[in-house]
């Protein structure tokens, strides 16, 4: 008989610990999930790496992939920030503390943090795709991890200030000495003292140095499309620029065939790819 614990299609039972809106238009909501079973929790954190994702599952509504928006040291829970867009995300938005939910993960490769030791980190995010970069930043900020890396610059742009996620944390980041944070909104607002403009332009303005640096870019496809060339112009080599890709997914484990770009599956070989790897893949995104 197959080993029941290893059925990769069977979601792990979880419960919602807390749920709160991130954006003023209620389109973005964060959920913190706790494990029903201790063994599942231990197994999860053994494998977890920022940049990975999970398939969240509600029976009757389906499953969808969401990037993990928390660092392991934050506690024995996993945070996801969900944008209300379709049938399934509408259903998730209706969940509240105490509701059960299924989770399969951690899936995907995550950011190759091990290779970034000693490097300067340039973290660039836009919109709701910032969630995994938030996880990455939180992970690095932990005293045990911070000294492994050199300078950290974060650029985070949203359409409006109301759509900015993780506001409390981002505000406290402005006070930190071990990192620079550059916030941006698309059009000017009263009371906004940070950058105004699209993320690619802000990156050009900030002009991070490519020397001993890696850049991570996560955002809507249009933002990524215009940001990557700017980094290349600034002198970043394609092997040092990373991005996280998205495509429609179902199994999340490289079996259903759906999420491929060329011969790479985003769920299994990604979602994190370097620009060098992307350049070797066909334009199928």
């Amino acid at each position, binding site marked *: *008989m197959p080993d029941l614990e290893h059925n990769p299609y069977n979601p792990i039972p979880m419960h919602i610990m807390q749920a709160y809106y991130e954006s003023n238009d209620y389109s973005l909501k964060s959920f913190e999930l706790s494990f029903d079973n201790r063994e599942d929790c231990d197994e999860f954190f053994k494998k977890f790496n920022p940049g990975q994702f999970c398939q969240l599952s509600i029976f009757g509504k389906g499953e969808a992939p969401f990037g993990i928006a928390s660092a392991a040291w934050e506690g024995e829970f996993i945070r996801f920030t969900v944008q209300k867009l379709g049938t399934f995300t509408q259903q998730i938005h209706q969940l509240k503390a105490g509701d059960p939910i299924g989770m399969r993960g951690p899936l995907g490769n995550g950011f190759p943090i091990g290779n970034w030791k000693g490097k300067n980190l340039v973290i660039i995010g836009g919109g709701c795709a910032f969630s995994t970069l938030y996880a990455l930043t939180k992970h690095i900020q932990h005293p045990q991890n911070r000294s492994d890396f050199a300078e950290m610059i974060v650029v985070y742009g949203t359409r409006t200030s109301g759509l900015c996620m993780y506001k409390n944390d981002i505000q406290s980041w402005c006070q930190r000495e071990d990192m620079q944070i550059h916030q941006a909104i698309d059009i000017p607002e009263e009371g906004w003292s940070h950058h105004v403009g699209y993320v690619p332009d802000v990156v050009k303005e900030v002009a991070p140095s490519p020397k001993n640096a890696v850049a991570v870019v996560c955002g809507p496809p249009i933002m990524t499309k215009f940001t990557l060339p700017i980094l290349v112009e600034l002198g970043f080599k394609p092997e040092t620029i990373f991005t996280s890709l998205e495509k429609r997914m179902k199994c999340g484990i490289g079996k259903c065939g759906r999420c491929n770009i060329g011969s790479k599956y985003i769920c299994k070989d990604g979602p994190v790819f370097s620009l060098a790897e992307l350049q070797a893949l066909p334009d199928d995104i």
Partner: protein
Amino acid sequence: MMHILNKKKLNQILTGWSTKYDIYAPQKVEDYSQFLPLGTADELALNEPHNTRFPPKSFFLPQSETLLKYDHRLKQLKEVVITPKPRIIFGIRPCDAYAVKLLDTVFDTAEYTDPYWKAKRNATLLIGMGCNDPCQTCFCTTVGHGPFNHDGLDALLTECQDNYFIETFTEKGNKLFSDLPAATKDQQRQVQEMQKKAAKSMQPAFDTTNLKQNLNQSFDSKYWAAISESCLGCGICTFLCPTCFCFDIVDEVQRNERIRNWDTCMFRIYSLEASGHNPRPTRKERTRQRIMHKYSYWIDHAGEIGCTGCGRCIRNCPVGLDIRAMLRAVNTFESETVNA
């Protein structure tokens, strides 16, 4: 060792096996043959001019399969892995058997084993029937296989006049036929010559030497729009293909089940994202995905072409598209446009 079995005694052998195994063999349904549970040997359709309409991959990856059942009390999904009674797929063609082996590289990997696939695989023996008269639409030799290839089979039958000659390749296959007498050296030689002749009779359908390269290089070329213009975008080629495996997972609320169904990269909604963006918005991109997956990406994943040349896509395409011609065209398309 090659065994010999008089055709008239096949019924006896099958009856003997049926105490321990469920036996499936090709039988006639309407105007085509299909793998069905065996009644008596008289119903067997082992010599139809074409392969079974439906590929035997459905024994391991059924078109619709329940993965999980929802328990309302626990508010949880519980898995439903069915281990079938030990069974024999009898009369499977070498191309279809090798296709199952190719699918193992998808479903049974070091990182994740698909328990549904594995349970069925472990319970199944594949007893093959070689092809004395390969069809016009067969091209197994072009993609590195052959009408009497045994890779993926537990045993292989070759029909010669009044007898079947049996070669066994695994322990399980051995056990099934161990009581049968051995063929004489002369008979063995005759059978081997017949097998070679059948393979030789098949002309190469397209050149695979630089195929992957040519496909990769033509990713952005006009070739794809040209060859896919008449394609209907239905699912026939992918559903009847023994190596296609893409599936969709849906919740059937009224039955409290999470099921998986065959899906196809030829449908528009296959890669349609919630935002409305579709990386493959037209037939041209979808045809490109299908062909590149089979003849390029499969090589990256499994080291070989993901097609075993069974010809079902050619015979059943409603608009007569022939993948052999499409691949011949990609080999010459780039050079033609370069020289033009």
